[in-house]
């Protein structure tokens, strides 16, 4: 019945990569003017499906019907000609050019043989205005937030050709709540213009907020396409991971159990008035063995800044730190590692993995840095350590010699975790350890944090997903505007934390 208003119909798509069948007989239908969420764990086949649709890869079997005609999409250029545009997670704009230049690049209106800059700016402004974005288009793109940049990228994608289908690949992974709302408003406007949107995300909440239908992929197979309002969340997650969520129940139990082992008198880390002007206001923090402390707050509230200070990436300009009753003088990552502090940084690609090196080299990196130049670990020992953590954390890699760039995001995160576990830290700081990671791996990492606490290690857990902080943390510190505002312990309501984060608790 609805076949007629399908803009895209993909039938029986198969795609094999050496050693892996990435897509097995996948069907996909997209209606005109709908927002359809495409969800699945890492490696479920979302990216491959998109790559087939945008001409980066070609399917081995199956047909694609676009706008009523069967097509063979030859190249990304061909896909764009048809009207399929993609905006990727990493924004592809020239950040030193102005917003107007970025939007109008290659199609600048001319006057007397030179570019008519007034017209360029005016047209760009108009286009943005139509989508309800009012910004100064003469400023460089780089001076705006990632959210605005993303929207400029969308606008440019729309301008280049007459777009019928817009694919948004993880557009919200680096946006905060407010920015996400802004993006959603734009998406709704595009939808009302009849543009169909494929929305790929890991955030289940956002799926329910914006999408009309949901397509679930798992292990390269099509699980189904559902009306969003008739599919309960738990059922969706169960479909994505192919099992029920017992893990979360047992986590709750283990959290309560571990909380009884925390010895309040055994202070591992004592921070007094530590601060750095322009980054984080002076704060106090006490950390006990076996404890998980969550840091909650919006992007830019100072949660990452605390992590950076404690690990010695930034130098504090006030306050003091005592660890194991010994005052800490030198702040640098190397000194911190020596003391037994580890940090999984927020930006996994830029600050975490060394993509060109192998899994083994990445895992032993911090351990080796701590040992110095001349106590080089023997090859055999290196493999033993790497294999131990590959097994323990279930890192999906063909071997320890695999280049890390070839692993999926979740597995890269596990490699960084392995790097830190290898130095056997006393304090593990995790900054957004589950960003861009599928539900199954998320649960694994949360479990890992609790089991580390059980071993008597202390963890600081930072996440923009409040639910996750609540699930793992014995104590929660709320930050707002570069300030520590409140500390919660025991049973806490999600609502009251959110109110504190927003500054409306009174």
């Amino acid at each position, binding site marked *: 019945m609805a076949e007629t208003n399908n803009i895209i119909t993909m039938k029986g798509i198969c795609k094999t*990569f050496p050693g892996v069948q990435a897509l097995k007989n996948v069907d996909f239908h997209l209606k005109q003017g709908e927002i359809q969420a495409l969800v699945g764990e890492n490696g479920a086949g979302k990216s491959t499906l998109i790559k087939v649709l945008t001409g980066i890869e070609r399917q081995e079997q199956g047909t694609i019907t676009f706008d009523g005609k069967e097509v063979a999409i030859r190249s990304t250029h061909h896909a764009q000609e048809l009207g399929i545009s993609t905006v990727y997670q990493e924004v592809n704009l020239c950040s030193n050019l102005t917003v107007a230049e970025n939007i109008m690049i290659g199609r600048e209106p001319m006057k007397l043989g030179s570019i008519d800059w007034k017209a360029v700016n005016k047209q760009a402004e108009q286009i943005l205005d139509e989508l309800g974005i009012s910004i100064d288009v003469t400023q460089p793109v780089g001076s705006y937030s990632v959210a605005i940049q993303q929207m400029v990228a969308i606008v440019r994608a729309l301008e280049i050709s007459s777009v019928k289908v817009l694919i948004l690949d993880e557009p919200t992974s680096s946006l905060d709540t407010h920015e996400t709302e802004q993006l959603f408003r734009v998406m709704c406007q595009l939808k009302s213009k009849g543009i169909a949107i494929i929305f790929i995300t890991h955030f289940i909440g956002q799926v329910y907020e914006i999408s009309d239908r949901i397509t679930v992929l798992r292990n390269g197979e099509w699980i189904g396409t559902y009306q969003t309002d008739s599919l309960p969340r738990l059922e969706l997650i169960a479909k994505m991971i192919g099992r029920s969520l017992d893990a979360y129940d047992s986590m709750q139990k283990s959290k309560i159990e571990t909380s009884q082992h925390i010895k309040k008198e055994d202070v591992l880390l004592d921070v007094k008035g530590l601060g750095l002007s322009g980054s984080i206001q002076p704060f106090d923090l006490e950390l006990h063995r076996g404890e998980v402390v969550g840091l909650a707050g919006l992007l830019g509230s100072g949660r990452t800044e605390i992590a950076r200070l404690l690990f010695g990436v930034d130098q504090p300009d006030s306050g003091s730190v005592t660890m194991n009753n010994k005052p800490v003088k030198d702040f640098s990552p190397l000194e911190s590692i020596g003391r037994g502090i580890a940090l999984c940084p927020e930006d996994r690609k830029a*600050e975490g993995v060394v993509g060109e090196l192998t899994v083994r080299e990445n895992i032993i990196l911090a351990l080796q840095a701590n040992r110095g130049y001349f106590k080089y670990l023997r090859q055999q020992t290196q493999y033993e350590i790497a294999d131990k953590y590959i097994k323990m954390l279930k890192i999906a890699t063909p071997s320890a010699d695999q280049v890390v760039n070839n692993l999926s995001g979740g597995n890269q995160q596990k490699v960084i975790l392995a790097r830190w576990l290898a130095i056997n830290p006393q304090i593990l700081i995790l900054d957004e350890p589950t960003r861009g990671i599928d539900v199954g791996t998320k649960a694994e990492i949360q479990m890992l944090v609790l089991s580390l606490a059980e071993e008597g290690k202390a963890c600081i857990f930072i996440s923009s997903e409040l639910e996750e902080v609540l699930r793992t943390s014995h104590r929660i510190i709320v930050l707002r505007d570069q300030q520590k505002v409140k500390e919660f312990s025991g049973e806490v309501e999600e609502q009251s934390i959110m109110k504190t984060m927003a500054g409306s608790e009174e």
Partner: protein
Amino acid sequence: MKSFTPYLLWKKISASKLFFPLSALALILLFDLIFIPNFFAIQVRDGNLYGNLVDILRSGSTVCILAIGMTLVIATGGIDLSVGAVMAIAASVAALMMNPYVMATVLSPETQRLINDPTFTFAPLWAVIAVSLLVATICGLWNGVLVAYAGIPAMVGTLILMISGRGIAQLITNGIRIQIFYEPFSYIANLWILVPFPLYIVVLMLILTWLLTRKTSLGLFIESVGANARSSFFSGIDEKLIKLLAYAFCGFCAGVAGLIASSNIKTSDANNIGLMLELDAILAVVIGGNLMTGGRFTLLGSVIGALVMQATTISMYSIGVPANAVMAIKGLVVLLVILLYSKQVREFMYRLTTQNRGNRL
């Protein structure tokens, strides 16, 4: 889902890192075999070997040694343009230490006789070598401080010493080209023990550097810093110190090369020693299969790359190409090799070979 095509491609490349430089060398030698009669002839005189192949190795030794140091600098994501100038500085220091009297304007007949005496040197040879290498290492440290600690882009930071280095070398010898009469010093480049002595230096440097980088954690840290300096810093690696060490070592290598070069021509010719050799060294590293962006490195590849450069030069001279045109042909050889490394060209070749298969789907 990761795409597996670049993965396989990468695996192929990494499995055969020495494949391209070796086949480039083989191609040039094949050319010689066909077009130059007796190119491979090797004579034995007084129990020592002579011939074109030996010449390639002997005259390529300075570039080989420069390339070893340059490899580490490039692996950290940098570049050192000053090695040619540092060679000149090391040569000037060495010459001055052996013969400081030339600085005087008037020489007594007594000193005049002393200067021309092949057994006379002011400072002992070991001190000459040690101090020249120390000065060269300090030059490298200077580069390292500028690049790693002052945050100046390597291209600009090392350009400073590239330009001023020859001036400094002139200042050291007061603008005089010092003749070196001291016989033992000339042995460095001219002694033959079955094969030329510089060859032993190259092999020794290669082995020492290999041990230094692969038997300690330095090699891993250099590759890590070159691939992602920030992640390395977050993992507790002192990325600035690693860079500093790489530049210092590169300066040291330039010093060794400078001593060989000045020993070869028996003067401190600040204007010509090591002239343009920084470019040969960089090209050798690239031909050797190292990425200019840093990360993974292969020392042996760079040395083979240096030999490719030298073999081209000697082959051209052997078939009588004029010296000026040799530069152009060298450029052509480099271009061909570099094109093979280009990702675009490789992908293009890959598409060409797989196109038909793709269309049949």
